[in-house]
């Protein structure tokens, strides 16, 4: 296992198991005459997440964290290695993966990406909740929909609204309600706070926290901001250059970071979360 200290990996059954996963992308060389080559956005990554755990994937842009999240969700296929989820190999092409994939839901930085702009909020939730019940074809009742809206702090009046009628924070709530409508056991959140105002970020963070208490949701939380990590995750995996360079309990890594990339992220986050005086001027 590259970089990940093996002693810190959970020893129980892994709910999500990533084994030596690599994802290469072909790139056309910039400029004159350079031939095609490939870069590895994710390189030989192994990681185990136990059921009910919350792990943060942290790194700068280009570190591979979003690509890894997409591989876990089965939105993309690894070039090498494999991802298992609930004991099955994640493969977008495999029939038996398709049948159970709604148990793993994803929310994104731009909540609108997951919301059909021509459907009202109620219709969006009703459609997804059918999967949650195993596609029984029964329509969710108005009460069901209202309960889904209430769970994320939206009101029954929001049922008839189109996505564009919601503010950014409300849209993220709706996209979370949409994900929860499928009754997932696992939630992948890719920078869900980045596009939101600070006051609204804290609302979504609190909501995710409560949801984890209510149901034993396994959470993979992708972020560039270490400051939110202690408030959402118990475990932390730091990515740099497509690899996991450090992995373990949040407490330990915050107290004693072992990799430079982690130290740099910590320093940046420390500056961001203090209301202190100006940092030194060059």
């Amino acid at each position: 296992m590259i970089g990940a200290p093996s002693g810190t990996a959970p020893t129980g059954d892994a709910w999500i198991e990533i084994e030596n996963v690599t994802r290469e992308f072909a790139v056309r060389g910039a400029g004159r005459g350079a031939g095609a080559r490939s870069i590895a956005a994710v390189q030989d990554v192994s990681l185990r997440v136990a059921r009910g755990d919350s792990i943060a994937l942290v790194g700068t842009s280009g570190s591979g964290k979003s690509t890894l999240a997409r591989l876990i969700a089965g939105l993309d296929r690894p070039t090498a290695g494999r991802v298992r989820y609930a004991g099955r190999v994640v493969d977008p092409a495999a029939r038996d993966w398709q049948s159970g994939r709604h148990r793993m839901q994803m929310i994104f930085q731009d909540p609108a990406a997951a919301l059909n702009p021509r459907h009202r909020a109620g219709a969006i939730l009703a459609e997804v909740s059918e999967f949650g019940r195993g596609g029984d074809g029964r329509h969710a009742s108005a009460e069901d929909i209202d309960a889904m809206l209430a769970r994320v702090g939206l009101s029954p009046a929001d049922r008839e609204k189109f996505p564009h009628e919601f503010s950014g924070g409300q849209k993220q709530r709706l996209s979370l309600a949409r994900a929860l409508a499928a009754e997932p056991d696992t939630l992948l959140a890719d920078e869900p706070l980045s596009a939101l105002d600070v006051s609204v970020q804290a609302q979504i963070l609190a909501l995710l926290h409560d949801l984890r208490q209510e149901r034993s949701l396994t959470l993979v939380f992708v972020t560039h901001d270490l400051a939110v990590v202690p408030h959402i995750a118990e475990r932390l995996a730091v990515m740099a250059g497509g690899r996991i360079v450090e992995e373990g309990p949040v407490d330990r890594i915050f107290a004693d970071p072992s990799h430079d990339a982690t130290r740099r992220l910590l320093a940046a986050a420390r500056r961001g979360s203090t209301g202190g005086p100006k940092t030194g001027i060059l």
Partner: protein
Amino acid sequence: MTFARGGESVRPVDGISLALQERECLVLLGESGSGKSLTALSTLRLEPRNATLSGTIRYEPRALDLLSAEPATIRSVRGSGIAMIFQEPMTALNPVLRCGEQIAEGIRLHASAGTRDANARTLALLEEVGMDDPARVAGQYPHELSGGMRQRVLTALALAGDPKLLIADEPTTALDVSTEQRILDLLLRLRDARGLAILMITHDWGVAAAMADRVSVLYAGQVVETGSAGDVLREPKHPYTRALHGAVPRLDRHAAAPVPIPGQVPEPGAFPSGCRFHPRCARAITACAEREPALLAGGTRTVRCDVENGVTS
């Protein structure tokens, strides 16, 4: 700033007063809908076409009021008096021109420099914004550069007219935390070296803490608190500034979780009566819904809150 919208007038910027000194960085701290970007654009008279401005925008180096000045005068202030950099440098740079050509064009526009002079100054500017290999960058197109490099090129372009005031509208929001730090360091260095005044627009408490000499906190089109960075960011007085501070996640594992501010930022046109923050405010009393609080000075700080200021009818 007033917009006419369906027979009603909407005022997203409502009575904002700011003053900047030479070699000073004033940070406008606010969330979306606070009016911070519209305020910045107005300073350059780049307000939306359908907006009406009232008040004054004094540019002291030339004793001008930009609100009543002729269009030609305003144009002459843009770039050589006041310049601006944006969140997404790609939208401000010409994608089909090499970086060097764009900067040289800016130099020729503001000074009557010959081609050779302009090229030499271009390289000097690229060096000033921290490029290791100015000649190489000058020959590259914007898409060939990383986000941080692009922001440096845009900054060099903004400096082409030798401005006195640089307006920076969320210049690091699209950047990584480590790149962000380097761009902020660059801006502070330019402030010191050139005596540049900087009006920095941000929603980010950390950016404000890193940059500001003084801070003005905006909420729903108004300034709610102004003061030195040390005062406002360390001991915020306005309930909104305090709540914003409480909503910023702390890095410390044992720190309290960030506290959400209930409700939403109100939309322009739907600002609440009385104090605009009162529906979300933990300290609000009945009077807050009825009476619009004044921005009152206490020492070096001004706060727009009747409860904090001890104003009774």
